[in-house]
Each structure stands twice: as C-alpha cells, then as structure tokens.
C-alpha cells in the first residue's frame, strides 16, 4: 500500500485549511455587505417616512380643512397653524404646532386654557416655522431625522384669521 509522505499530507491539509479560510472570509463579506445594505435601506426609508409623513400631514390638514379660515399664531415651541371652525354656534380651533420634539395637533374650543403638551403627538419634528403671505403659506420644518424641509402651500380662500 502506497502512503503519502508527511510533507505532501501537510500541503494537502494546508490547502484545505486555506480554502476553508477563503470560504469563511467570503461568507463574512457577504454578511457584512448584506447588513450594510439593510442598514442603509432602513435609515433611508426612515428618513423618507419622517419627511413625507410630516409634510403631507400639514398639506392634507390644509386641504381637508372644512373651513377656509386658516391663520398663524404662536403656540408650543414656535409657530402654530390654526384652523377655525364654527360647530353648532361654538368656535373650535384645530392647532398644528411643534412641542417637545413632536408635531402635535390640538382640537379645542376657542378661549380654552390649554397647554401645548395637551395636544396629540403626530410625528417627531423639532421645529416648525411658517409664514403666511397673500394666501401662500411657506413652511419650514425640521423632521425627526433632523432634515430641514421647506415647501409652500397655496391656501384657497384664505381669510388670514386664526387665533
């Protein structure tokens, strides 16, 4: 029976070991690439969600408002968008503002003693600045991911009212 020499066996074993090492490195590389791709996807999706939801929430609020009486006031951490509506002879205000790192909404009767913290938290946002001029509302929003979004909304039938 022919036997392999010890050096030949060692080379064969070493080759197997090296191939296994290369295999392990390949697995690790694919795993790392996959993890990185997944991380970048989730970060980007979270950013998109924060920006899209915050901006579209305000735009939809303006578009869906039953009353054209829209105005600006100061409430919470800065500017506040106010929708005034008359319900059964009583005036109610819907306020959209930023407070404690959240975009909030507060629906309450006019003149009521409410705090910014009483509002319903909608989505994380650190700042909301608005300017209403000639029916054009300029909005500058810093979303929960720290991205600044600036956009304009044309308010149809705006009366310049508010609280």
């Amino acid at each position: 029976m022919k036997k392999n020499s010890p050096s030949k066996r060692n080379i064969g074993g070493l080759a197997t070991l090296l191939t296994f090492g290369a295999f392990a490195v390949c697995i690790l590389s694919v795993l790392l690439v996959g993890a990185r791709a997944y991380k970048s996807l989730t970060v980007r999706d979270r950013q998109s969600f924060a920006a899209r939801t915050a901006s579209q929430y305000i735009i939809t609020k303006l578009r869906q408002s039953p009353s054209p009486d829209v105005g600006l006031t100061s409430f919470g951490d800065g500017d506040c968008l106010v929708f005034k509506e008359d319900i059964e002879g009583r005036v109610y205000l819907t306020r959209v503002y930023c407070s404690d790192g959240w975009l909030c909404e507060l629906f309450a009767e006019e003149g009521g003693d409410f705090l910014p913290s009483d509002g319903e938290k909608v989505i994380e946002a650190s700042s909301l600045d608005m300017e209403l001029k000639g029916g054009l509302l300029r909005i500058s929003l810093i979303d929960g991911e720290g991205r600044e979004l600036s956009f304009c909304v044309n308010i149809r039938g705006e009366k310049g009212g508010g609280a």
Partner: protein
Amino acid sequence: MRSRSPLALIELLIMIMIFALAAALCLRAFVWADLKSASNADADMAALHAQSAAELLKGSEGDYSFAAMELGGVLSAAQHGDKLAPAAEQESLLVRYGSDWKSSPEADAFTLSAVPLETSVPGLESALIAVNDASGAELISFTVSWQKED
C-alpha cells in the same frame, strides 16, 4: 490509510462554487434594493418640491419670476416637449438641486422645470412641472392649471 485531504478539498471547492452562486444572487438583490430605495427617496423629495413649485405657480397665478425667486431657481427659455407644446414667447422655470435637495445654481444632481403650456380654454393657464435626475431620468411629472384672473 489514504489521506482524506483531496476529498475534503474537492468538497470545499464545490461548496465555494455553490456559495459564490448564491452570494452573487444575494449581492445583486442587495444592490437592486439599495438603488430602488434611493430612487424612492428621491421620488419622495421630487414630489414635495414639484408640489411646492405647483403651489407657488397657482398662488401667484403663473408668476414664474416669483416662483424662481422663492425656489432659488432661474428663468430660462421654454423647452419643447414631445407631446405638449409650450406657450409661445414665455419663459420657463428652472431650479437646480444638489444631492441634499438644497437649491443652488451650480448644483446638478436634480433639476426641476416648469414649462408653460398653451391651453384652449380662455383664462386657463397650465404648466408642465417635471423633476429629472442628473442622468435625465424623470422622477415625477405632472400638469398644473390655474385660472388667470383679469
């Protein structure tokens, strides 16, 4: 006793070949997902900026200079589209954005254009708003119309 090393080596090589095939498919899926996610994020921002431009044009009743000033863009000669004819002797709006979606005249990552269109309805004005990326691919495009008050 015969050494098992060559057999183990062949097993490993076959395993690596199968793994390489699976890895190639996985990497392709990762790259596709990454590109798709980036394209979706860009489309979201493009929609927001295009919507803002449309609101500005509607609010100002087609004052392209005002919209250009507000958005940080410039006025340029109207470009002819394939299907829609631009209104004669009117300027169009062009806004350039960087990859961070900040408008700048030197930026070239994205371009927003608003081209006035001719309408057959008296008193009605229209514009074609489009956002393209650096390669020229269209991210969003729509027509906006408003009533011009005398």
